[in-house]
């Protein structure tokens, strides 16, 4: 137990170091952007109205002061960490003066909801079918599924998404192709609202599941194909262990360990959002927020999203690291 606690402590220090390095990198990369939020706003105002050059210069100076855009980089860096530790990254520069974290927290549930369900679904179904396909290698249905998975997997995600829009929005218009829920439904904890969200999430979730399913399926099938040739599997079969028990408890369980790492990293990656899904299906979430922030030069908002992504991915890996010695006896804590 003491060894395990030492192991946890080491991993905790590693987690803190990864988060610090990751967020620092995000900070400096974000500040290398050639896009200035001040100039974006001045440009927009200038395009929309007939302001004199002197007035635009006055506006530029006012916004520069308001956004503290002329502070030296190292001062901005220190200010950022001072704000980060209290959980307030400051106002968004493209939604001034609304706090950046408020914008992130509004978009986050949609992304987490959609991606978590899609990832878990594609991971579970893909691994289950992949495991069975690797074990029952002569089953015709699973063979056919393998062919389909191999065929779909290389197709770029956006093509799959567009095909779904065309099929279910145009040729057979039975599913909504835009938005997070119907306009005639008021948000609230009601069955109508929940069903509307589910209804609107079918196509975006399906697009993610279809692509993700193939990846999990093929990975698991390859892993299981190797494991079934292991001696302990042969012995178990010769000993008369039921095939269902062999496949689920001897084979898939062992093959699932590396797949679990992939699942954790995928779940951690949720916090970066799904930019293409949101654009294609007009679905709310972090992806659009991040793109808008990058295009607007809003360093505060970009850092709010990227900091959350760094913390989420690092934490997911941390949790998996902690679970590994418990799940897989071959991994030792020393």
């Amino acid at each position: 137990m003491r060894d395990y606690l030492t192991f946890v402590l080491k991993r905790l220090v590693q987690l803190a170091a990864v988060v610090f390095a990751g967020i620092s990198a995000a900070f400096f990369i974000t500040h290398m952007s050639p896009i200035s939020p001040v100039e974006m706003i001045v440009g927009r105002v200038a395009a929309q109205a007939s302001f004199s050059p002197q007035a635009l210069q006055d506006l530029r100076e006012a916004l520069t002061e308001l956004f503290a855009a002329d502070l030296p980089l190292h001062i901005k860096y220190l200010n950022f960490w001072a704000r980060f530790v209290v959980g307030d990254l400051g106002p968004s520069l493209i939604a001034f003066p609304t706090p950046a974290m408020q914008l992130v927290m509004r978009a986050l549930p949609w992304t987490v909801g959609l991606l978590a369900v899609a990832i878990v679904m594609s991971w579970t179904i893909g691994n289950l079918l992949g495991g069975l396909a690797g074990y029952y290698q002569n089953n015709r249905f699973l063979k056919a599924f393998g062919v389909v998975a191999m065929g779909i997997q290389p197709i770029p995600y956006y093509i799959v998404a567009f095909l779904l829009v065309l099929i279910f929005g145009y040729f057979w218009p039975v599913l909504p192709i835009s938005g997070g829920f119907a306009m005639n439904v008021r948000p609230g904890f009601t069955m109508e609202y929940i069903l509307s969200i589910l209804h609107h999430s079918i196509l975006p979730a399906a697009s993610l599941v279809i692509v993700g399913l193939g990846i999990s399926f093929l990975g698991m099938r390859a892993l299981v194909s190797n494991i079934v040739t292991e001696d302990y599997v042969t012995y178990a079969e010769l000993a008369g262990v039921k095939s269902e028990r062999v496949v689920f408890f001897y084979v898939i369980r062992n093959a699932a360990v590396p797949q679990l790492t992939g699942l954790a990293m995928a779940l951690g990656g949720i916090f970066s959002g799904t930019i293409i899904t949101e654009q294609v299906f007009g679905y709310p979430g972090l992806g659009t927020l991040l793109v808008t922030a990058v295009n607007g030069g809003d360093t505060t908002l970009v850092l709010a999203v990227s900091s959350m992504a760094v913390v989420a991915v690092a934490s997911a890996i941390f949790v998996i690291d902690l679970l590994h010695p418990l799940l897989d006896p071959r991994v030792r804590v020393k």
Partner: protein
Amino acid sequence: MKKWKTLLASAGLFALMASVPAVAQDVPPITEFPREQTMIVHNPENPAINPDWFNLWVAGHGGGTSTGLHQLVTDTLWYIDPNAGIDGSLYSSLAAEPWSYNDDFTEMTVKLREGLYWSDGVEFTAADVVYTVETLKAHSAFGASANLNRHVASVEAVDDHTVLFKLNAPNSRFHSAFAVRWNAAWIMPKHIFEQHENPTEFDFNPPVGLGPYTLNSYDPNGAWYIWEKREDWERTSVAQYGEPGPQYIIYRSIPNIDNRLIEMVNGNLDMIHDLTPEAMFSLVQQDETARGWFPGFPFAHPDPTLPAIILNNQNELFSDRRVRWALTLMLDARQISMASYRGAATLSPIAIPPTGTHLDDYHSQLQDWLIDFELDTGSSVIKPYDPDIGLQVAEMVRPQFGDQVPTDPNEIRRAFGFGWWGQNLEAAAELLEDAGFTRQGNDWYTPNGERFAFTLKTFESGVINRFGTMAAQQWTQAGVQVDVEVDPVIFPTSMPLGDFDALTAWTIESWGGDPDLSFFLDSWHSEFLVEPGERQSPRNFQRFEHPELDRIIEEVRVTEFGTPENLALGHEFARLMVEEMPLIPMMSYNVFAAYSERYWTGFPDAVERPYANPVTNWANSRYIFTQVEPAQ
């Protein structure tokens, strides 16, 4: 084996059950509002990232503007329509009449319309205007703050319906601060904002406006906003043009172009802000109720701005007008039209967008001058203008689009452009040789012996990218080595910093519905020109200066809006631009805005009802709602 088969069967059954609610219905209803009372409009903005925020005075608020908020709720003193307008392009909105200046343009008096009320029932008075100006001036976070501080010394309510602005310096165009082209400084409800100590931190939710609609509901994710007609719409400024038709107006953000097309075909969208040329052609083929600005090809609405090749005149390479003209004559406008807009461009040989009333005020009136215009190449004198290029483009697209392409030459000229500069490689060569350039084989060399080469920056995609790529290709074929560089920061960085040799972008934003050019032209005065490397304030991004240009601008400054003298100065500007060619004008910014007549009729179009710009994010599109009627 049985267990996993059972598992698979269960999964299949679950999937089937999940799809039943969707399959059991026809096209999914998107609204509970009666369709014959509801208009659904496309908002081209991405879903608002700060959807609860309606205080649109704050610079960069993130709350969405074209959500219906600035079309249906806010209001200000005047609107200048980019097209003909319902009763002329100038609308006196909250003002009862046009602006009135004193003799030296240091004071502007505004008579306000009486009998107007805020949507919460409070009467609109001069106190609201005074409060707006003083509040905007006092808080630099408001976008209009700097402009008002620069120009306004004081503002006072002479009486409940008269406002007097005293200006810091003579300014004959101060009214433009409160005259909507795309937007303007909106008037604030004093009785609402004065309750908040810091009005820049007030979200203004729900908004209280002077427009004919109020907020019904909105998507907390910022994708749609639903507005409902005020019961007392007669107490708003648009009432003078009739009752707005729709009881409800929904603005939807639909980022994906394919989805817009599909939603209109499915009856879930009545107005689309923009499509690609290809999507527009597809839409009118598939949906017989779908229309564009022009009844046939090219369908698109020419917005009052001008895609052009902007040459950096501070670059020595382009400092000689003969070189600029040679580059112009190397271009084939027909190919550029086909490459950029698939032929659906409205070409412009002059540096004024061919749209709105400019077609009559400038393009028609300058035709004879353009036809007679002579250019001395050093070896010969040529007449470079080809008045039939628009007709030629029409013939190029006719095999594909057939009856949709107009046959009347005048109609073609208004849709495809009156003409452009004919490609003349021989004259271009003479001009370059006259400027000291030499040719080796097909390659041109500058007077100092270097290869005539430069980089053309352009957008990542879309018509502007296609336009730039084709122009560069034509120059390269003519012996000038032009590399195309995609630049994602043309507007915020490259263009103002002068970090380019040449680029394609839109420029020359005009009122569209009025010949006055001050909207873009005043900033072209040489007093605002900066040194190379310094940030150039909009809009003289070609960094061009000329004594004659300064004279024209100075005369415009003391010439009344809407007078023959003002138009004459506009003609002088257009002629100077032709003679000097500091930028190469190409065409109007054609927006493939579409509308469907399935549920509503009476939309504006180029031929029968050119009363408004159908491009939905313009604030003056609000007048459209007073002209539409249910289709059945």
